[in-house]
């Protein structure tokens, strides 16, 4: 029984990830601060913070959690950990400064900093940790949650149980703040106030625990109904819980009370020790102490040396090949199997790999890093051969030097995916892949400067647009170095290494548009000054400064059109697979007597052409009152269309990750079948039950909604920033932004509706059982 108890660790990935992320952020900030003031930021702080997190984890994800529903005494231990142990340990770690310093600079200065400086937030925080407020909240929370009705509610309903834990932990943090007074908070009241503060808290704790200990009836009937472990009666269990609350609870209150009392009466000897230590440390490391105000505008933690293993790898001449060669081989298998293998998509590599796995991995890569898909693109591998054999001396025709060709190709691709059921035809998939190799070979064989990537490739255009909201871009690490650079190798090239083939001059580059992550500039820069740089996703979308190789985004109607096609295409593509839309299309076929292909053509003409033009046009007209000096409706529509990119990406992410996570196992039997057909039986006989789609898990639905949520907020914020930049006053900015905000909200609601609809599981087998 004991063994079973000890093995009962509930798997809570959100909690585990939050704890790990917190300790990593704290650790980074603590390490930085320790370099400036080792005495203040002693190792004890780090241990204390880790201890606080461990207490939370033990309370919520150890055997305590499952046993708490059977034994009140265990439930009491859980609450004590959340109220009495975790909060003081966390405050002893003085987490405010380390947590701020541990965050990426952009997040600290652009997102968190302004909120922390907001007077209302500061006033509210001061009010919250005032002893009178803190004590009132602490006692109120304790009393309310120990009332039988509310305690029962928490025991029977998981959401209320979460709320109870949140209240206990939250009020615990608030209560212990005035007692611990973590650095750099300033005390605005006499420390003598803490004596009645802790005494009153102990009195309420004593009253409650005495009530539990000496009650002659079971206060929480829930525990009367559950099986009694080890024949402990519910009343004995309740009395033990009361004692646990009483004794350790009182120690937690009275211990600090005596400590503070003695310190006030006789002075703090530890304080003197700390001062001496601090003096010694300052002599040893005379660096200035970081101030809270400095944090807002502090430079990013500067890179030093050669930039670490990652940059060294990226600068390796063959770094890209590491990704390209495996993908090239996979592409060859897909082509072979698509042309020669069975023509049923769940059985064929060409029916599974590109439409389930590759698309999902591409969008997840774009979300987690950047344009990794173009970096690993296998279609550009034969380019070197093409350059050797073909003239490659022509410039790309001037009339085609825009994204209009790509817009058309993207539209055709989205239409043909549905109209020709590409996902259900391994032969078509293989032929398109082969055609891609041919097109890249011919275009790059005759024309200079990666014309295929820049002007033709629809997949590349998808990646360019979506990577505008990626957290990483290829950029210069220190702009100062570029001002003194005379050779400009990042664009001109150096020795065998070509410069940027897409005309992106690094010092003037902003965002990932047209960047294939080919690493040429990284390798060409003799100063090791170009690398992968992190920034807040979407921040590059808001401004309208000149961008190298692109110009101003507000002047690029072709790119805006590409954005609109891809944003509305995200919703149309997902919509084409959900039951209500499919039924509606079938109804139209019956009513009008048109062929399915005609209906699909009409659907895509509306979704990719009519609706985007109407929506952007109306929003542009509504946000363009004549009283403002504006450059024209088309220019306004072009400018604000980019605000839709994050939401569109959220929809692609939700859609493709759905297919990836419900159908990822399809690769197993398909690979086994392919290997067996090729004469290699080492992988075993195909397990075709793996080719069935898995049921949609709750976490997946939540993840899809989360992707949409983040895209929605980022789109709104980007639109608002654009309007704030364009208009003189806040009210003008709001009026300009409002129509676009409404359009974004409408699209978000459509996305939410789509997520909740039953979706076709394409590329999988439908089996019973």
């Amino acid at each position, binding site marked *: 029984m004991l063994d079973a108890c000890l093995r009962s660790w*509930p798997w809570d990935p959100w909690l585990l990830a939050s704890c790990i992320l917190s300790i990593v952020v704290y650790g980074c900030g603590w390490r930085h601060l320790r370099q400036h003031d080792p005495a203040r930021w002693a190792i004890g702080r780090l241990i204390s913070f880790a201890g606080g997190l461990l207490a939370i984890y033990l309370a919520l994800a150890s055997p305590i*959690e499952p046993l708490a529903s059977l034994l009140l005494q265990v439930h009491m231990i859980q609450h004590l950990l959340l109220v009495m142990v975790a909060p003081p340990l966390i405050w002893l770690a003085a987490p405010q400064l380390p947590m701020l310093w541990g965050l990426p600079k952009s997040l600290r200065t652009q997102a968190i900093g302004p909120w922390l400086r907001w007077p209302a937030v500061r006033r509210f925080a001061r009010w919250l940790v005032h002893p009178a407020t803190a004590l009132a909240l602490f006692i109120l929370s304790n009393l309310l949650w120990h009332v039988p009705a509310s305690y029962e509610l928490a025991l029977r309903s998981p959401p209320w149980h979460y709320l109870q834990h949140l209240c206990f932990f939250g009020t615990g943090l608030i209560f212990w703040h005035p007692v611990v007074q973590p650095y750099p908070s300033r005390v605005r009241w006499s420390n003598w106030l803490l004596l009645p503060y802790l005494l009153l808290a102990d009195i309420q704790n004593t009253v409650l625990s005495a009530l539990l200990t000496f009650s002659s009836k079971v206060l929480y009937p829930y525990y009367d109904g559950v099986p009694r472990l080890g024949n402990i009666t519910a009343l004995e269990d309740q009395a033990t819980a009361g004692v646990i609350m009483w004794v350790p609870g009182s120690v937690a209150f009275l211990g600090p009370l005596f400590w503070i009392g003695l310190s006030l009466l006789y002075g703090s000897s530890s304080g003197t020790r700390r001062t001496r230590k601090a003096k010694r440390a300052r002599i040893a490391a005379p660096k200035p102490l970081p101030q809270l105000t400095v944090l807002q505008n502090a430079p990013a933690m500067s890179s030093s040396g050669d930039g670490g293993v990652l940059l060294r790898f990226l600068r390796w001449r063959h770094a890209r090949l590491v990704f390209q060669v495996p993908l090239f081989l996979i592409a060859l298998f897909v082509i072979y199997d698509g042309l020669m293998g069975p023509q049923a998509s769940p059985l064929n590599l060409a029916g599974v790999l590109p439409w389930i796995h590759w698309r999902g991995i591409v969008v997840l890569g774009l*979300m987690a890093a950047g344009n990794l898909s173009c970096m690993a693109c296998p279609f550009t591998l034969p380019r070197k051969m093409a350059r050797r054999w073909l003239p490659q001396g022509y410039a790309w025709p001037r009339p085609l030097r825009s994204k209009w060709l790509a817009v058309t190709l993207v539209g055709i691709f989205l239409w043909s995916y549905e109209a020709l059921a590409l996902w259900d035809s391994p032969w078509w998939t293989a032929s398109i892949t082969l055609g891609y190799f041919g097109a890249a070979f011919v275009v790059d064989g005759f024309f200079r400067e990666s014309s295929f990537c820049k002007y033709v490739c629809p997949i590349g255009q998808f990646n360019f647009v979506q990577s505008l909201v990626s957290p990483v871009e290829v950029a210069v690490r220190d702009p100062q170095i570029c001002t003194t650079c005379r050779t400009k190798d990042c664009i001109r090239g150096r020795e065998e290494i070509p410069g940027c083939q897409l005309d992106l001059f690094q010092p003037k580059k902003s965002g990932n548009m047209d960047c294939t992550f080919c690493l040429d500039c990284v390798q060409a820069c003799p100063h090791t000054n170009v690398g992968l740089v992190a920034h807040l996703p979407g921040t590059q979308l808001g401004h309208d400064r000149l961008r190298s190789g692109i110009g101003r985004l507000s002047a690029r109607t072709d790119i805006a059109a590409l954005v609109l096609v891809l944003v509305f295409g995200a919703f149309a593509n997902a919509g084409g697979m959900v039951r209500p839309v499919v039924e509606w299309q079938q109804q139209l076929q019956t009513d009008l007597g048109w062929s399915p292909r005609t209906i699909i053509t009409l659907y895509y003409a509306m979704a990719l052409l009519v609706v985007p033009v109407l929506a952007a046009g109306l929003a542009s007209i509504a946000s363009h009152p004549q009283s403002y000096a504006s450059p024209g409706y088309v220019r306004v529509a072009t400018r604000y269309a980019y605000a839709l990119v994050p939401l569109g990406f959220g929809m692609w992410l939700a859609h493709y990750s759905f297919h990836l996570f419900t159908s990822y196992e399809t690769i197993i039997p398909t690979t086994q079948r392919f290997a067996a057909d090729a004469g290699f039986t080492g992988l075993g006989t195909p397990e075709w039950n793996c080719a069935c789609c898995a049921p949609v898990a709750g976490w997946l639905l939540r993840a899809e909604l989360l992707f949409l949520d983040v895209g929605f*907020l980022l789109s709104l914020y980007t639109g608002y920033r654009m309007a704030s930049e364009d208009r003189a006053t806040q009210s003008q900015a709001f009026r300009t932004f409002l129509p676009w905000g409404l359009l974004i909200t409408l699209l978000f609601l459509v996305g939410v509706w789509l997520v909740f609809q039953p979706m076709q599981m394409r590329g999988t087998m439908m089996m019973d059982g």
Partner: protein
Amino acid sequence: MRTFPRTIFASLMLVLVLPAEQVCADAGAVRASERRGDRQITVFTDPTPLRAGPVDVSVLVQDSRTGLVTVSDTIHVTIAPPGETGRGIRRLATGENASNKLFQAAHLEVPSAGWWEITVEVKGPGKVQTPERIVIEVDAAEPLPPWQSMWIWFCWPFAAIAVFAVFKATGRDPRSGSPR
């Protein structure tokens, strides 16, 4: 460049965490607790109230004299329409399916709303005799539309927008901190 690993780390954590499924049942509501021979058998079902769709049935077997838990019994759970005992969907209840390893749990799918019969068969290790059997009738409600249980996941952005609106209404520029 130094900030890069942290951002990537955060993103990767998100990517790694999202697929992780909380598969284990955490007991739920007590449906029956009966003494059979030298055993006290308690059956729990989750969710509460019971609805059509995925359901967890957890079973706790105790020695009726000492109250100590037994985890070595073989437990089968069957769900069937009333009157068709033992002829529906049958699953083995295991400790792996339960987050509380004192229990043995089985994941089942209640096909539709209405009355259903859940049969729990408990057989001791190595015993040849007939297994102890508990039959309970449950009324499964209509499944909730997913949006009703997930409204918070798509409504929270509106709360964030409201906070931002209040922030802007105070007349402060978020970047400079100066009044506009």
